[in-house]
């Protein structure tokens, strides 16, 4: 077979394969039954036409967003620093010591305070 013969043969095979696959796709499309999903899509998409926001709203919100002050990430704002943590622990420790002292005084008085003679 000459070179042109081979080229022509390959081109014809390619064309047939392409036509066959297009036919198959078309047949599949024709014979594929409409699924409930297809029907739902048609009905529901028709039921909910796209609703556009007013251009004034879009522009105003865009301006507000672009001009809003930079925010500190929430977790950084909320996370206590090591200094804050130390102060909080210190206050808690002092509170505990004070409570313990009050309890000790009450117990001491109850045990060792001079008892008044009964009238």
């Amino acid at each position, binding site marked *: 077979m000459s070179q042109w013969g081979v080229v022509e043969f390959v081109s014809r095979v390619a064309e047939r394969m392409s036509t066959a696959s297009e036919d198959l796709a078309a047949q599949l499309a024709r014979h594929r039954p409409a699924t*409930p*999903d297809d029907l*739902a*899509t048609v*009905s*529901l*998409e*028709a*039921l*909910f*036409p*796209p*609703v*556009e*926001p007013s251009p004034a*709203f*879009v522009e105003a*919100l*865009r301006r*507000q*967003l*672009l001009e*809003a002050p930079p*925010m500190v*990430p*929430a977790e950084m704002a909320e996370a206590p620093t090591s200094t804050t943590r130390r102060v909080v622990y210190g206050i808690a420790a002092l509170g505990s010591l004070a409570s313990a002292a009050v309890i000790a005084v009450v117990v001491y008085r109850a045990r060792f305070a001079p008892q008044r003679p009964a009238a």
Partner: protein
Amino acid sequence: MKGARLRVVNGEPDEVLAIRARTDREAFGILYERHVRRVYNYMYYRTGSVADAEDLTARTFFQALNNMHRYQVQGVPFSAWLFRIAHNLVANWHRDTGRHHTISTDGIVDLPTDADGPHDTAEMEEERRELHAALRRLPADRQQLLILKYVEQLSTEEIAVIMGRSEGAIKALLHRTIKSLREELSRTKRGG
């Protein structure tokens, strides 16, 4: 994420812009322009009111702006992340206002029809109203699912992220919702 779609308009995909938007307000502005209409549309159909839709749309974008540093590119498309914020805000709104039947009726009156005559037009209008009434009787999560799927045309994968469920659960819920909608409509027809 497998099958994640990158939204590319005017150059950079959403996910690249989202990283830049942590420090670059203009990048956030581009993301806003790309998504504001879809978020508004979603809010409108979830609240049934222009004023509430505007308020919740604004809150969605401000919350997104303040939380850009939390957005992780791996795994979640930006649109799904944004709609998850919108979903949480509208869920809180429903909880606070105690409203459940949210699908707006405003849009259905002016729909164009392909009907041939006045009788067909009236019949189609009646069918739409029945479908609408059936939709309003659905539980809130099913209404939400239908809006995300058929109004916002999000993928099952994105809806799964937004609603915090697996893709399989979303597919099953969609199937059950459409089936129950059909049953509800045939009951209405038989009854009327």
